[in-house]
């Protein structure tokens, strides 16, 4: 009996030594994707409705890494009727983001509402907060990352709660590969606590030593729609600077 207690106690100590907090895992996962300094990507977004009909969007995305949130400039390339429409975003951790839209037909730079977190990005199943930097500081975490098995593979299950009260989600569960610390899939719950979206991080690639997402699928389980986002070209440490993200670049 005493031996059993000792063995059980030792196992508990071993588990405690290896258990990592959800926040630690989230931080590691974020850091795996950090350090890109700036990037230029060409992406394709395929929107699929509940009936299976599809529609394609193409964008050029420039990003600048920042300690208090990233800056991004999205230039819409396709469909042609929205070509050259630009969206400039300044992410501000702990505050409302700033966003400006350039409408080429009117030559107008328009400030848009900073609280546009849950709104759909280009009619896709990605919301504005889904396409933001996913900085681990934007969420609060509970307890430890749980080791789980899904389809015969081991993952670290991290539950996170958006700090922003205007988020469209009450909580998110993200499954992280314990070897690479890269997120593989996740479940996002709406404000009423019902499952809203399932996200799959389908492909990563390493560019200049930095892990970069190459393909994501977002499925909305409530309306049956889905969106596939594919990075067709991607470069990091792209020598972009603050001036490349000022409002002047919108015109």
């Amino acid at each position, binding site marked *: 009996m005493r031996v059993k207690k000792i063995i059980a106690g030792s196992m508990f100590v071993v588990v405690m030594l290896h258990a990592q907090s959800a926040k630690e895992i989230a931080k590691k996962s974020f850091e795996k994707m950090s350090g890109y300094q700036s990037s230029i990507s060409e992406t394709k977004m395929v*929107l699929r409705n509940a009936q299976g009909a599809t*529609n394609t969007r193409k964008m050029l995305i420039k990003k600048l890494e920042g300690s208090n949130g990233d800056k991004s400039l999205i230039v819409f390339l*396709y469909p042609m009727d929205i070509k050259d429409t630009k969206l400039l975003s300044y992410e501000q951790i702990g505050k409302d983001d700033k966003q400006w839209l350039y409408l080429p037909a009117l030559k107008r730079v328009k400030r848009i509402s*900073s609280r546009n977190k849950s709104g759909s990005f280009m009619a896709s199943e990605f919301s504005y907060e889904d396409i933001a930097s996913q900085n681990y500081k934007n969420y609060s975490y509970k307890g430890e990352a749980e080791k789980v098995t899904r389809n015969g593979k081991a993952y670290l299950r991290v539950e996170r709660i958006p700090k922003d009260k205007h988020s469209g989600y009450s909580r998110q569960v993200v499954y992280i590969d314990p070897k690479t610390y890269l997120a593989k899939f996740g479940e996002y719950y709406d404000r009423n606590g019902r499952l809203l979206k399932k996200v799959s991080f389908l492909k990563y690639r390493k560019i200049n030593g930095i892990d970069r997402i190459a393909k994501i699928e977002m499925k909305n389980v409530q*309306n049956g729609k889905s969106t596939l986002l594919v990075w067709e070209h991607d470069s990091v440490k792209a020598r972009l600077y603050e001036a490349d993200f000022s409002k002047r670049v919108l015109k």
Partner: protein
Amino acid sequence: MKKAALLMLLTLVGLGAVEVKSTVDITYEGYSNSGVQTDVNGDVELSGKNTLFASKMKLIYLYSDRYEERRYIYINELFAARSMRDYRFEIGKRVVYWGELEGYNITDVFNQKNYLLDPFDKSAKLGSWSGTVSRYFGDDLFEAGVKFYEEDLDLSNSHTPYYPLPISYSSHLNLQEERYTPTLYMSYTLTSEKIVESESRVILWHGYDNKRNFIPIEYGQRLAQYVYRVNKALFLSHIVYEDMIFKAEGSYTQVINYGPMSDYWQFGVGAEKSLYDIGGADVTFYTEYYRYMYKDDTKVKNVDISEIYNDDLFLAAKLNFNDIRSSELRAGMLYDFDNSEKVFKVEAKMRLLDRFVLHAQWLRIMPDDNTLLSAFEDHTRMKFGMRYTF
């Protein structure tokens, strides 16, 4: 001016990679009084860039199957731009946008409206020959510019819908000075985040007014526009407060040595609020109020469409369905407190097969007697169309 245009065109052709974007829009229009018509309008846009400068040419065209007067093809934009560190230079025929409000922009005075295309479309504007120098100070901006040519302005003639004049019109411009007499402006844009996030701009303008008088010519047989010089101060601003955006535009115009016209003030204020993910759709609400005041009430009035916006309330909503067809519905109402006049407009559009956009519009004007709005005899208009972009 033709030589300048040719030179610019050659410059554009000389650029390495030239991007081409074209639009063809076929629209069927039905009016309460005038006969139905089918319009074909659109543009061809060429833009290029090399290490020295960027350049753009935009050709616009309109063909009405019913009205010969509503047929044109010309270059609306043709300019070169160069950015160097904190400076940007632009020269050529340009369209610019100065405004914050959604319904009507008091401060958007740089370009004349394209009345042949649609007097009720605020994006229908004609390019102006001009040049600007911009200097950026972080997010702040100083800009100085000059407009150096005033072009004749076409209106549809008396047989077409929305012709506001009692007799026929001559597009030949009459000017207080020369066509080449420059109009100068300078502006400063200031951004602040001290108490609330805001961006404000002041523009000082000296030269020809965008508002014009009509004078009789040919022994009173026809009317023509008379362009006079003014000093103008313009102000536009927006403030972001929580999830609301508050906007303001205002202007004061002092007429220089032209007796028939009075000095005038204009101002407008508005607010915008968006609600996201309402059953998957986004809704934006707009509320705006406009005022127009003359310093001398006895002088000429009601010669410009801007004068309609006096003691008027604008209420509108935009519904974005966030579907794969990018379907959008806009509805707005303008209500005049003075004369109880009303204007209603509903617009809808959706994308089809990536390159086609189906669009429809309903416009209803309910004017009072003897007002500027009552000069438009057609009070109801329906439009259906399809736009192809390639």
